[in-house]
């Protein structure tokens, strides 16, 4: 019985095997890239807000401390989004008639809360606590970036688990003195490579074993 296919067709079968492997690799790589991309993580993306609030102006320009608005950051898991009253403390006096601030005044007048879109949104099975990070010397800018230079707020980090673990596995690389936590512009002093280790000890930051327990963040 004669062969149905000519010998040279073998090359096609070999090529197609290669192509399948290659396609799978590209697909896998694509999915992996998609996973860490801003499309998936919302990294570097602006979110529509009821008012185009500028951190660059309020923090960078006016020098208002983070805690003036994010008041519960040292006490609670949640850093607090300020009530309308906090905005009105100033804006009943300055820019009191600015059209851009009408939603704020309306909220105050009608006793209807403003609805802000969440920029940093962790999955619901992750339990992050601001107060302990601030206490242990993790600066605001470490996770949130140079907020004082952001006219509109965006998420600077991926907020993926591997990003969390970068620090939980090696906190010395990221901690800073407590008095610099709210300083946006703080930079690691070049002449003090031991500082991180020293602060980890001084602040009694938990062992890596404890920091990487599943139940530290998931429960």
């Amino acid at each position, binding site marked *: 019985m004669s062969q149905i296919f000519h010998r040279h067709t073998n090359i096609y079968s070999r090529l197609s095997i290669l192509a399948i492997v290659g396609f799978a690799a590209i697909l896998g790589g694509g999915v992996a890239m998609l996973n860490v991309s801003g499309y*998936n993580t919302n990294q570097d993306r602006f*979110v529509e807000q009821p008012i185009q609030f500028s951190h660059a102006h309020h923090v960078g320009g006016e020098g208002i401390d983070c805690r003036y608005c994010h008041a519960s950051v040292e006490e*609670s898991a949640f850093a607090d989004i*300020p009530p309308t009253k906090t905005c009105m403390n100033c804006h009943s006096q300055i820019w009191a008639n600015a059209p851009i601030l009408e939603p704020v005044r309306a*909220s105050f007048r009608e006793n209807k809360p403003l609805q802000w879109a*969440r920029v940093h949104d962790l999955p619901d099975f992750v339990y992050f606590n601001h107060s302990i990070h601030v206490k242990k010397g993790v600066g605001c800018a470490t996770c949130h970036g140079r907020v004082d230079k952001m006219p509109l707020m965006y998420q600077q980090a991926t907020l993926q688990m591997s990003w969390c673990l970068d620090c939980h596995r090696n906190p010395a690389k990221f901690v800073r003195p407590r008095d610099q936590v709210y300083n946006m512009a703080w930079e690691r002093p070049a002449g003090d490579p031991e500082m991180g280790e020293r602060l980890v000890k001084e602040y*009694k930051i938990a062992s890596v074993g404890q920091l990487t327990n599943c*139940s530290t963040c998931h*429960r």
Partner: protein
Amino acid sequence: MDSSPIRSRLAGSHGRVYWRSLGELADTLEFREYLHREFPEQASEWNDPKGRRQFLKLMSASLALAGVGACTKQPTEMIVPYVKQPEDMIPGRPLFFATAIPFSGVAQPVLVESHMGRPTKIEGNPEHPASLGATDTFTQAAILGLYDPDRAKTVTNRGAVQPWGAFLSAMQTAGSRQKATQGAGIRFLSGPITSPSLAELMATVLAAFPKATWHQFDPVARAAAQVAETAAQSAAGDPLYHFDKADVIVSLDADFLTCGPGSVRYQKDFAARRRVTDERKEMNRLYAIESTPSLTGVKADHRLALKAGEIEGFARELAGSLGAGPGAAAPQPGASVPRPSTPEVAKWVASVAKDLQAHRGRSLVVAGEYQPASVHALAHAMNQSLGNVGTTVTYGAGLEAAPTGNAASLSDLVRAMDAGQVELLVMLGGVNPVYTAPADLKFSEKLAKVAQSVYHGLYVDETAFLCHWNLPDSHPLETWGDARAYDGTVTVMQPLIAPLYEGRSAAEVLAVFTAQSDRRGHAIVKDYWTRAFNSGGWAMRAPDGQAFRNVDTFWKRILHDGFIGGTAFADGGSATPFIAAAPAAATGAGAAAVTDAPSPAAPPATPVAVAAAPAQATPAPVAALQGGLELIFRPDPTVWDGRFANNGWLQELPKPLTKVTWDTTAWVSPQLAKERGLADGDVIELKYRGNTARMPVFRVPGQPHESVTVFFGYGRRMAGNVGTATKDAELFNAFLLRTSDAPWFGNGLEISKTGARHPLATTQEHHLMEGRAPVRVATLEEYRNEPKIIAEQGEKPPKTLTMYPEHKYDGNKWGMAIDLSSCTGCSACTIACVAENNIPVVGKEQVAAGREMHWIRVDHYFAGNDYDTAVEAYHQPVPCMQCENAPCEVVCPVAATTHSSEGLNDMVYNRCVGTRYCSNNCPYKVRRFNFLLYQDWDTQSLHPMRNPDVTVRSRGVMEKCTYCVQRINQARIDAKREDRDIRDGEVVTACQAVCPSEAIVFGNLNDPNSRVSKIKAQERNYGLLEDLNTRPRTTYLAALRNPNPELESAASRPATEH
């Protein structure tokens, strides 16, 4: 079922035998199924009515799409801050408010956890004498009651939605018409009332309508006790027991540990006197003479099963041999009291009397809530002659503000309804007489003769359906109010949340009939207590003994504390009877000036013109003998009289002793079952005094041979989506059999097998331990003589016997100890865990398939060699053991369960792929797999109920006890923020917090001075199945018993060796 294999197994066994169920003893097929497969056959298979082909299709599709599920992109979430943030509110941190959940009118004091205005969890009020931090199952489950989507939502008239104003004007019209006859046509019906402010309002209404009548009815009332006290001593009142002072306790059919308004405190006191430590090796001794096996009975050191009608005879014998009160002991004319006269009873009477005599002033005789007045009188006489009155038992003034004769009061009402005298009937507070009234009153028929009926309750239930006006009640967590606790302490209620629907409290509805028809709860309560404070008639002070400076500090302080100090009977005694000092004096003293309210009519000294003096208030105690079997009524241990029927948490809570969920059963003794050829789940027809009902039977060891016990609360026709009975279960209603002349027991019951079967979902045979000495027991004497007796009951391999390296713990090392001597099996821990950890309800079919999701279960073991009269039983709460050598950790292919640096077996839900290897490898069977999507994601009203600190798990994920890791983490963060270590006692798990007997202790094992370390150092500490070398860090303290050597027969002696 053939019981011969049981007998031969028991006869052939050496030493001590523990068994879960009669099925285990008989080694039935079903039992073997549970034992070998854990889940019954096909439990792990697709249970939709779809074929194998469909299954494969779905499987291939789901395989192809596996992983895609993880690709969901989070939707944008909104943050909604306040406009003006309230003081004290820190977003992300819960606040706790003191309030009370009334149960049959009596306050159960609580602290409620509130997350951003949402109540999510109830804890006991640690400063309140009636709670001391603990709660019971009903109180725990109230949180689900608040968010129940089936609650009544709007005002309706004949089914049509109406505004509140329409009701108001209808009542004003009716009221002005009634003015002419001084309200002769108005009747009110409510449950028992202890609330001072409501009582005053009631008096005001009755002053405006002098001929109107107020009736009170509670199907599970404690009326018998009150009437008895009235008869036995000149002052009316409730007995208050002080178990912390009693060494010998005799219970005459009393379930004081788990039933009744004082049970939480009673359990605490009882356990405190029973707890054995290294320093104090003393225990109290409890004798239980009871008709229906109860948790109190199985906790007893000696238990005697008698028919309910024989309890009085026993009490007479006992009183006689104590020489107590010949007057009280004299038989009532006409009542033929059966006197049990077997040699066993004689021996009991002699031994118990001797023991009581030896402990004069430190003993206590407790009469059962459901025993007639004569038994209470006998108990009182015995306590008096033993010198216990004033030490172990005291009498408070009447707890209820204006008691009416209960059943007699309801009969009066029904008579008036029948005679057409009732033109307006107002039923307040969810009293549901159509369902709960004795069958002979035919309440629903008579209700049709009422011209205008108003029903106020949380649900549109059987009675609401037949009434013209329906008014939604507000839940206690939405209500301003007050109530008294069992010891008389005035407990203040404040709302945790604005009413979810149009609910109004009973006081607000009652206000409609006063001059100020629109007064709201806050005004009513605050106004009342302002006047009470200003009148000075009450000896009120802060719990620390300080007097209040002024009325503002008073009001703030009582809201903060949740109760008013100095108002307990023990503080004021009967010298300050409750009503006399109440607003009568307040208004008289010109206190009306304090408020702009017009001075309410001064309530009379006996505040309310109660329904006709209850001439026949003493219920005919023991029904005349009519032959046949004895029928005993009991409230259901989880749904009570049916008021909790729509609460899924309580429905799914395994009922004590039978572990049946979602159903009621008629209890028969194994011997009677054998005689009548009955097996568990056989439906019988019960004929009693011309009434008929049906019930599935359950054989319960320790049930008297000729008695059948039925439980209220089932067979409801309109309870809601959860509680409404299915068609075939509509006759499983014990109220169908109840008659007003014999409310709790009577003779003349005929039972017959119908041939029908009702499948029962009982967890008793789930999660078995293959009989490997799960509970260890010794008598106090044996333990005192040789403490090693506990360790010798099992085998403990050396620590080195493992291939895995030893874990090292630098900081905390968490552990738990559970004292089996203290545990009463009340199962409050299970409900507390459900509430804290967002555990879903799975439903009856799923429970039958072994898929209940409770993270902590209470195993129950009978002990002894005679299954007919087995009276000894032990309860063992089993949460995750958090093993040191955890079998679950090593088999997980995706490392979803890992060992934490503090010793917990962490369970990572978002990593779990659902292989269930861990559960297969767990010898304790504490892992729960979410087979189907059990969590209700769709019902909006349930969303705010969930604890935001705990993940809401989805389908296909394993879950288990975490030692309340969310509480550990919060405590750790708080400690670190304050630069200190976590203090001992700072982390309290949900099960530990709720436990009324303090059986569960949690803490740091690395600290030798922590409470848990000290407890674990006791020689009766042992690990469950520790021969497997899992090294569990939840360990148990062996149960100790304190039997009377005179009564302890050689046969039931625990074996000292195996």
